Structures are given as C-alpha cells and as structure tokens.
C-alpha cells in the first residue's frame, strides 16, 4: 500500500486532497476556485517567473522560460500535458491524473492562454488515468481543443521529444536536439510540453493567489524502500530527506537512490540533504521527478546499482549505438563487481565511462546509467572493495531487469 501524506503546514493549500477513492468531479473542483476566468495571462506568467516555479518532469527547468519561449514563437502553438511517468518509482503524475484530472486540465488551459496556443493534448499511458481525464473532459471541456493521446509505457516515452514524436504519429522515442519542441514540436508548431504536476501547480497558483508562493515551492515526492513501505508525499522544498524516510518507515536507511533512477546513489550524510533541484545537483545528485528509494541496512548498494543499470539497459530505446554499447558495458561491469569477478581494470573502466558517457545519447537514459556507476564507486568504495573475490549474498540472486525493486503501486 502506498500512503498519501501531506507535510504542508496546517491549512496550507496543496495538491493532495484526501484521497477520495474516486476522481474529483467538476463541482468539487469549482468549489476550490478552479477554472476561474483568466483575464490577464501576462500577469500570471510574470507571477510564475517571479516565484520561480520549476518544471516537475525531471530536469527542473524554469517553467516561465519555457512558457515565454513558446509564446514568443511565431504561428499557431500547441500545449501538451505530459502525464507519462517513466520512472518506475514515481506515482505522482498518475495519481494526479486519476484523482484530480480537472486541476491538470485547468493548468493546461491556463498554459494555452499564456502561450497563445489553440490546441492541447493530454499524453499518458495509464488506463485509469485516461478514463479519469476523458470523464473530466466530458464534464467540462475548457475552450481549448484537447485530444488525449495514449502511448505505450516505457522509461523514455515521457521524454519531451519522444512525446512530440508520438503525438505526430511516430514511435515514442527521443530525437536528436535541436530542434527542441518549443522550436518545432507537434505538427512542426512551437510546442510546450509540460509535466502534469507543473500544470497542476500553475492552476493552484492561479486559483489561490494568496498561496501561490508555497504552491510554487512545494513538491510531490514518491518515497519507497525495502519491504514495500511507500508513500506519495507533498512537502515544502528544503525538507530534509530524513523526514521523508521516517515518514515511510525507512528511518534506518543507510543510503538512498535519488531522482528515480536518475540521480545516482547517496550514502553517508543522506539524512541531512535538503530536498530540491539545486541542493541535490550541488552534491552530484538530482531530484529528477522527485522519487526517492531508500536502501535499508540489509540492502547492498552494489546489488541495487546492478539492478538499476540492468533495468536501464533493458529500457534503452536502442536507437543510439553509444547507449546500447554503453548501458550494456556498464551493466556487465557492475554485475562483475557484484559477483566478485571485477579486477581493478573493471573499476577503472567504470570510472572512465562515468566521465565519457554522459550527454552522448539522444536522451538522458545513458546519463542515468553512468551516474549509477559513478556514484557507487565514489560513495561506496568499501562496499565495492568488499565484493572483490568473494560472493555477496545480497548480490548472488541474478539481477532482474524488470525494475521490480523500484516499482511503486499508485495509491
């Protein structure tokens, strides 16, 4: 069971309403101030810029910069609500679409008004989410023309160039950049691809102007760990990871995997890390989509790295030669470490790849795999050494490629 918990101070407006067991209907959403007429789009955009709202899909890019780039582009424009949650350890996007489809559609309509778009899409793979969105659209379709596009779920299907390619009728696979979607996206039109949590925050900032600052600065986070204790939590930025671990029953954790599979492993000192894009980037990690997977005392960081790398290798879209070769080599090398078969040259290779592979694929999957390898070596040298020449019980089970360890059920 995945819990749903708000850590916002009493009375503060957040995105996690108590789970209703059903999707929020139009009347309930109107009652919290939803779908208010937008009279001054420019003012809302300035407010988003001033409060520094960052995108919640993974990269943490400033939302206002993206909105303005699409607004400034010539010709018809398109906005996309991206609800395809690639990280197996994240549930927030599917939770929002399933339980609060109107807040996402409201955000999409506001984004369209701010960018001047006349066409919108909701992009997703989750069937219950699709049903909730279609029901919400039938209740109240915003003035914008909105189509729902369903994709197959993969790790990379939510990457923004893959989103555009899929909506254009192609496979959901990343393309080389430039052009980025804001330059040439759906049907060649300048396109805003925005994560559904980002859009929900835009809507909440607009409907509750008094609470806009804390709304822009809070995060939906999925925490998980050994034994299956998991929770979807809304927290103010800067919350220490220890608080999140305690909350989900993982207070005794020795380490944490940051940003889904994207931010690498962190050991000693993890408890005092403050949640945020900049704070985690500063220590060589990443917040990504806000998923945190804790490692308990019985978990072996090497085994976790092997499973993460194997999963990423299996999820490689196999478009880029360097990604196929690179993820394969990383996964084999980590598996050799796990089985006590790695010599010093293997460790040296892992170090070299962690420097040479990031940035070389068309998307970030290869970077994620390289960071898993690099952070394992940098932060767990003793555990890596301890595997040399002897078997580790936690590592002896063959690594599964299906990412089972990291998957969290949607509450």
């Amino acid at each position, binding site marked *: 069971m995945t819990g749903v918990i708000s850590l916002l101070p009493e009375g503060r407006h957040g995105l996690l309403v108590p789970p209703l067991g059903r999707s929020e209907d139009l009347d309930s959403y109107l009652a919290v101030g939803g779908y208010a007429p937008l009279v001054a789009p420019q003012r809302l955009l300035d407010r988003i810029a001033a409060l520094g709202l960052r995108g919640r899909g993974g990269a943490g890019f400033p939302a206002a910069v993206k909105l303005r780039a699409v607004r400034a582009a010539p010709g018809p424009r398109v906005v996309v609500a991206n609800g395809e949650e690639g990280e197996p350890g994240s549930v927030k996007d599917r939770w929002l679409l399933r339980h609060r489809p109107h807040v996402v559609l409201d955000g999409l309509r506001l984004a369209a008004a701010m960018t001047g778009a006349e066409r919108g899409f909701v992009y997703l793979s989750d069937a219950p989410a699709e049903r909730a969105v279609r029901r919400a659209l039938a209740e109240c379709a915003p003035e914008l023309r909105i189509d729902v596009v369903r994709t197959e779920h993969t790790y990379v299907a939510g990457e923004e160039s893959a989103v555009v390619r899929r909506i254009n009728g192609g496979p959901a696979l990343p393309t*080389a950049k*430039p052009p980025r979607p804001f330059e040439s996206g759906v049907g060649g039109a300048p396109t805003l691809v925005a994560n559904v949590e980002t859009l929900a925050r835009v809507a909440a900032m607009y409907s509750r102007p008094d609470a806009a600052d804390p709304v822009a600065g809070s995060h939906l986070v999925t925490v998980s760990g050994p034994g299956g204790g998991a929770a979807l939590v809304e927290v103010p930025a800067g919350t220490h990871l220890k608080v999140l671990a305690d909350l989900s029953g993982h207070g005794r954790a020795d380490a944490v995997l940051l940003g889904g599979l994207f931010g690498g492993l962190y050991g000693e000192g993890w408890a005092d890390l403050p949640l945020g894009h900049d704070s985690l980037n500063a220590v060589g990690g990443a917040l990504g989509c806000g998923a945190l997977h804790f490692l308990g005392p019985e978990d072996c960081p090497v085994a976790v790295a092997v499973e993460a790398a194997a999963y990423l290798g299996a999820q490689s879209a196999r478009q880029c030669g*360097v*990604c196929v*070769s690179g993820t394969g080599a990383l996964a084999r090398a980590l598996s050799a470490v796990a089985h006590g078969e790695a010599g010093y040259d293997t460790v040296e290779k892992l170090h070299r790849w962690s420097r040479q592979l990031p940035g070389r694929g068309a998307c970030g999957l290869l970077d994620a795999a390289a960071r898993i390898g690099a952070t394992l070596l940098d932060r767990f040298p003793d555990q890596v050494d301890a595997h040399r020449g002897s078997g580790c019980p936690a590592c002896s089970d063959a690594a599964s490629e299906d990412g089972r360890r990291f998957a969290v059920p949607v509450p």
Partner: protein
Amino acid sequence: MKLLLDSTRCQGYGLCQEPSPELIDLDEWGYARVRAAEVPSGGEDAAEAAVAACPNSALRLVK
C-alpha cells in the same frame, strides 16, 4: 558554429574522425564523440570535412 552529432544516426563507421581528429574522437566501440560542440576558430574546414565524411548524415553544422 556548432558541430552536432545525432547519436541515433551514428553507426560507428569512424569515417568522420579521419579528416578531423582535432574535432572528433572515437570511443572504444567506434562511436564518434564531438570533443567540443563549439567549433574553434580555424576549425571550420575540418568540421565541414567531418560532416561530409559521414555516410549516415549523423553530423551537422549549425550556425
């Protein structure tokens, strides 16, 4: 001027590196790696030669 590699097109033929080793090196699997996206001044001819050498149109120059 920027020299950009589309890694989805790079097949690792290595032909781009021959005329322009100062701009491109090959990794252990033979895939091209652009040393620095920004082409250094004086390197324009080499960049064009690299683009022309790739049989798969994986490289391009962007002003």
